């Protein structure tokens, strides 16, 4: 007991270990026993405490110098460790074990510890550590489970000192006591941690990861993997020890379960639902692999260990029978941990779940202080010296960079080192009191020294402002506080009728830190009652996009727009109507236009009519023109946008205000004048007339071929294409070319082709889209169909369509969005309707999913849905009464209910069909 008293007097009162010692009288024996084993007499202990304080106060006297540099190793490194003089580094790997001197400009190989002709597996290192008190002492962990110590002071070439072969599996980690010269700790895959005294041949004590607080593994209940609390498993264990081996009969099983369940319900307010019916079983005591062990820097007797199952344990080195504390830190293996060099209770852990967590261990329950989410599993974590909140991490897979994080700013790394070409396997700060030098070893066989000032800082590249629109026009804006403060003087928002509804300022209570940003978030709300997007919904719902003649569609849409007070849009619709279906045009043409299908198609139809009408008179002329056209075709026809060119030509020659005049003024007169005013213009125009003609077959083919099977189907489905028209479209090919020629020649005599305006319309659409009114752009696109489609490139169209559909879906206008998808001609858009079209049904008898066919259940071999009228299986639409649940084929039921109001099944229910 005297030993304990002296212990207590030396251990600072905050120490959890010391607190833990007080109430446990039984510990005194084992504690003092172990202390004596380790040579920790009370005088030795006080010595070491002094040493400890000396270490911490002995700040780096000499200033370190150096630059960012790297050197090539012969083999991939697995781990590195720095000598306490900060001038040497040891690199260890499967086939490398060398000491390098860190000089001003380069690394210099000092010593190769891998000696002997036939390298044994003892030299295949998984980890290496250099003693922080004795610069001659090194320890390595070998992949075959051996722990080796090395004494650099040995005169022979072979510096190997001692060999401990106690672990059965790979040793993942070795760790020297920070102050004690001869205490070494190892953690292995076999689930054991062993503490070695280097003056003895074997381990002093063994800590088993399996010996958790509760004793053994966990109980599992078969339903849904609920781990029974360890406390309870103890109870169960005491009740029925045989159960652990799966030897119980079912009845007994039930009893135990009830007990467990009751206990559970009593002890833990966890909603379990029903009594689990399956048997419990024992996922046994396969001890969990130890991934890391670290002595606490401050607490003399404490060390932390991390496990493959996500647990972290805290041990008192004098108490090998059970750990002081255990908690689950990560989901999946915890690969590493590191004690904070200054803050007593802080432990950083990194796991496969891509997280770094900082725990405060001083409180009763380990409390998660900070959490940093990285992009790959965390292999190593090391606190940065002299920077309270900084830590460096590297990853085990995929990501090759080393990051230094400020734990208070978990989203952007404070610094990033990108030198390595393969994963970094070991990192170490060069000196425990110098925050600017970081050393690293990597699988790419290189050793690097990174200077903090050379690091890239992602923060600088990050956008300091964020902006986002809410669905109803609210606007959120976040910016660095300094920026907001600077601009608030100018009051940029006062001009707006919107005002921030709240203004949030987050200030960090901790000391001001340069890299730490605090930002201000402002949210601007739309004016109450303004219901800014109401027009969008109304318009979307009321617009007519297809199914009527073009003129009607335009009129209708113009009316809708006018009623919503959107005069410009209304005007646009009116103009479109004027352009594409002015009353002067042939009525047949009008009809074909109106179907909303391709303009070329409609035009062609009209042409064939015209040909019949005026065939003989024009015959000679056409032949003439055709020869001319042929002559010129080689030069111009290759350009598919030939029509465009002519249009532009027209505009240039005729002056820009002419089309406008045409639109607003007297149509007939202006039109005639155009051609009459300018006699020489008509002449050059003649071949131009040919161009669109010759272009027709070309365009025609484009129209016909691209639609895949589903497109054809779409078109066939759509009600606005008559069969005869489609026939003409496909049957009127090449030989009609000369007839086309003549016909539209005739057309040109009377008026401008709609193509004439396509540039204008295109610009108009772009204008609306640019304005943010993608609704208008898409609506016009659909209504005009083929007339404008060719002028706008596919990608833009697709972009408009997708944005509009996205908007519609945000407003839950599913029907409209579906209609738009259906009417779109862009392949990428129309395939939206083809995805996830399956409807899964369950059998009405056994309630199980019917996987193969929708009407016969595989299990109960019954037809799920019979028609009450015809008594046949319904394979398509099934309609049923919600009252009596009888039903059948849609047509049959409709017909039946026309004549009778009673259920066809004869159940007497008065069914209703609405």
């Amino acid at each position: 007991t005297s030993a304990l008293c002296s212990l207590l007097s030396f251990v600072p009162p905050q120490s959890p270990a010391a607190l833990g010692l007080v109430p446990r009288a039984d510990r005194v024996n084992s504690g003092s026993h172990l202390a004596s084993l380790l040579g920790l007499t009370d005088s030795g202990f006080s010595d070491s405490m002094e040493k400890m304080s000396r270490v911490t106060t002995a700040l780096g006297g000499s200033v370190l110098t150096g630059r960012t540099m790297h050197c090539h190793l012969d083999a991939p490194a697995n781990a590195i460790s720095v000598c306490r003089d900060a001038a040497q580094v040891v690199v260890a790997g499967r086939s490398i074990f060398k000491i390098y001197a860190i000089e001003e400009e380069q690394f210099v190989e000092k010593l190769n510890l891998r000696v002997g002709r036939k390298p044994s597996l003892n030299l295949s290192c998984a980890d290496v550590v250099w003693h922080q008190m004795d610069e001659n002492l090194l320890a390595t962990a070998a992949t075959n489970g051996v722990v080796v110590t090395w004494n650099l002071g040995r005169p022979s070439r072979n510096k190997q000192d001692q060999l401990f072969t106690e672990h059965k599996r790979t040793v993942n980690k070795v760790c020297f006591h920070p102050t004690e010269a001869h205490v070494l700790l190892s953690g292995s895959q076999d689930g054991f941690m062993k503490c070695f005294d280097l003056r003895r041949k074997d381990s002093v004590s063994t800590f088993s990861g399996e010996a958790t607080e509760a004793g053994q593994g966990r109980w599992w209940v078969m339903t849904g993997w609920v781990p029974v609390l360890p406390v309870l498993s103890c109870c169960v264990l005491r009740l029925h020890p045989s159960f652990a081996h799966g030897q119980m009969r079912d009845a007994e099983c039930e009893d135990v379960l009830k007990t467990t369940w009751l206990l559970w319900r009593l002890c833990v307010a966890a909603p379990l639902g029903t009594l689990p019916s399956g048997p419990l079983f024992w996922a046994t005591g396969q001890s969990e692999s130890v991934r890391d062990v670290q002595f606490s820097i401050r607490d003399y007797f404490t060390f932390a260990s991390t496990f493959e199952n996500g647990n972290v344990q805290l041990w008192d080195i004098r108490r090998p029978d059970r750990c002081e504390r255990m908690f689950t830190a990560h989901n999946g293996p915890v690969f590493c941990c590191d004690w904070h060099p200054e803050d007593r209770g802080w432990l950083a852990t990194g796991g496969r779940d891509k997280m770094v967590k900082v725990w405060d261990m001083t409180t009763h329950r380990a409390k998660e202080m900070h959490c940093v989410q990285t992009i790959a599993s965390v292999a190593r974590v090391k606190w940065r010296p002299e920077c309270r909140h900084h830590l460096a991490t590297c990853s085990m897979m995929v990501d090759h960079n080393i990051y230094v994080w400020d734990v208070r700013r978990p989203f952007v790394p404070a610094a990033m080192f990108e030198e390595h070409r393969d994963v970094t396997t070991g990192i170490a700060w060069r000196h425990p009191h110098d925050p600017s030098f970081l050393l690293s070893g990597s699988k790419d066989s290189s050793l690097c020294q990174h200077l903090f000032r050379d690091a890239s800082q992602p923060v600088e590249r990050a956008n300091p402002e964020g902006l986002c629109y809410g669905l109803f026009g609210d606007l959120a804006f976040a910016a660095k506080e300094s920026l907001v403060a600077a601009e608030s003087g100018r009051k940029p928002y006062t001009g707006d009728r919107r005002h921030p509804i709240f203004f949030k300022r987050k200030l960090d209570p901790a000391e001001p830190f340069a890299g730490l940003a605090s930002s201000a978030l402002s949210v601007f709300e739309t004016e109450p009652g303004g219901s800014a997007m109401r027009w969008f919904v109304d318009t979307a719902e009321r617009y007519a996009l297809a199914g009527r003649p073009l003129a009607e569609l335009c009129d209708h849409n113009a009316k809708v727009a006018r009623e919503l007070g959107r005069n410009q849009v209304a005007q646009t619709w009116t103009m479109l109507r004027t352009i594409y279906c002015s009353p002067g045009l042939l009525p047949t043409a009008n009809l074909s236009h109106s179907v909303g299908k391709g303009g070329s198609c409609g035009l062609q139809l009209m042409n064939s009519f015209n040909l019949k009408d005026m065939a003989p008179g024009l015959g000679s002329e056409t032949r003439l023109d055709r020869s001319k056209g042929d002559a010129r075709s080689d030069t111009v026809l290759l350009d598919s946008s030939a029509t465009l060119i002519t249009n532009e030509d027209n505009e240039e020659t005729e002056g820009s205000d002419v089309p406008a005049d045409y639109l607003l003024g007297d149509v007939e007169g202006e039109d005639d004048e155009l051609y009459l005013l300018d006699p020489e213009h008509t002449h050059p125009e003649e071949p131009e007339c040919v161009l669109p003609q010759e272009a027709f077959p070309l365009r025609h083919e484009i129209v016909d071929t691209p639609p895949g099977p589903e497109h054809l189907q779409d078109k066939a489905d759509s009600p606005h294409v008559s069969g005869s028209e489609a026939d003409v479209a496909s049957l009127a090919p090449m030989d009609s070319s000369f007839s086309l020629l003549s016909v539209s020649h005739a057309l040109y005599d009377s008026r401008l082709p709609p193509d004439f305006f396509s540039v204008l319309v295109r610009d108009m659409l772009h204008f609306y889209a640019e304005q943010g009114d993608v609704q208008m752009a898409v609506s016009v696109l659909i209504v005009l169909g083929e007339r404008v489609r060719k002028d706008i490139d596919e990608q833009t169209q697709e972009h408009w369509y997708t944005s509009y559909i996205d908007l519609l879906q945000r407003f839950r206008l599913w029907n409209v969005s579906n209609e738009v998808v259906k009417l779109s001609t862009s392949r990428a858009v129309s395939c939206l309707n083809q995805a996830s079209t399956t409807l899964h049904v369950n059998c009405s008898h056994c309630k199980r999913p019917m996987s193969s066919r929708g009407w016969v259940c595989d299990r109960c071999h019954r037809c799920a849905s019979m028609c009450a009228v015809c008594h046949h299986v319904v394979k398509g639409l099934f309609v049923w009464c919600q009252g009596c649940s009888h039903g059948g084929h849609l047509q049959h039921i409709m017909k039946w209910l026309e004549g009778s109001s009673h259920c066809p099944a004869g159940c007497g229910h008065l069914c209703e069909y609405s």
Partner: protein
Amino acid sequence: MNRGGSSPSAAANYLLCTNCRKVLRKDKRIRVSQPLTRGPSAFIPEKEVVQANTVVERTNFLVEEYSTSGRLDNITQVMSLHTQYLESFLRSQFYMLRMDGPLPLPYRHYIAIMAAARHQCSYLINMHVDEFLKTGGIAEWLNGLEYVPQRLKNLNEINKLLAHRPWLITKEHIQKLVKTGENNWSLPELVHAVVLLAHYHALASFVFGSGINPERDPEISNGFRLISVNNFCVCDLANDNNIENASLSGSNFGIVDSLSELEALMERMKRLQEEREDEEATQEEMSTRFEKEKKESLFVVSGDTFHSFPHSEFEDDMIITSDVSRYIEDPGFGYEDFARRGEEHLPTFRAQDYTWENHGFSLVNRLYSDIGHLLDEKFRMVYNLTYNTMATHEDVDTTMLRRALFNYVHCMFGIRYDDYDYGEVNQLLERSLKVYIKTVTCYPERTTKRMYDSYWRQFKHSEKVHVNLLLMEARMQAELLYALRAITRHLT
């Protein structure tokens, strides 16, 4: 091997091996239409598979939740001997086939077909042909590889290597698949495909290793299935048990023998455990032990020990022009002993340098989210599963045995654990068991009931199924490790 005499030319309509033909001639029947044993497995008596009510309930619940076909198939029935494992298995399989993933559903089933075809596992093929069609696959693809898109065809090479010699997969193979082009695979798609391939190669091992009977389901009206069933000799499915059953049925001869066998094994296990403390092998010896084990696996000629064939003959036998071969190319490509290729001397895969826990998991989870957790759980489950029993003995720590099985499988694929003493394998696994292991993992299609029966005669069937589960998962992990390592190398 009774498939020895089957000549493709003679069997135009359905393939029958000579042995079967003999039997058929005797019986004067045209075709054997029913599997010869009832129940889910040809190796395990039906009554052994029957379970307590609670387990059945549980299994049914699992099947309902996770089975894609919605019924209790024979694999599930056999696996339900280990319900806790079954859950992980079904969950991960369901995830691969039905849940979010980069590949379209029909693709997944087609890949499963391709994988199963490498081992001529008609059971799995039939199962997935149905599923393939159900999920909207194009029936034409089932005519063979020439009818599938080039993209799927490109998967052939990796399928072949993965199934038989995974150590040959290099980053070049990966690069070839993912390099931009018309038929390229994205990495997530590729990982999904690799997981599926490995899963179904391993599952084929289980199917043959446990002698899973074909589903008895007269309801399936799908024409293709009937054809494919007709084209297989039944003994392909039930593997020679029909012929040798008679001779083996009176197999009481080994009882006394096997009792002492069991005792001896227990004794050896105990000795090994004790020896650990005092006797330690030198490093050199340890590494030679691995080499020895590797080499020795060479002489463990898979196949029937009673009429052992020279190895070369097998190679020719492998080229069977059955219906299955249309899903594969290069059917002659089979397992070749890792140790045998002396000249080129491929480096041993050091397990510690690329482990599932550290590396494989992270990669697979990154590219195909959540599958990592499911596989991880499955691997842990199978590795840690124990009832602390061995045959009639209770309270036995079987860790050593499980580890030996697992590591022996990896050893045959050239994966070495630095911290494992391969001498243990020799001590714990008797020769007949080694033959069985090697056959099941490397040439599963050659597994016979005789092999299944010849090892561990005293053990329960459920324990043998446990062995099969271990073999299956070990194989899957080995394949995954090689494939994922290649992908990692491609990425860096």
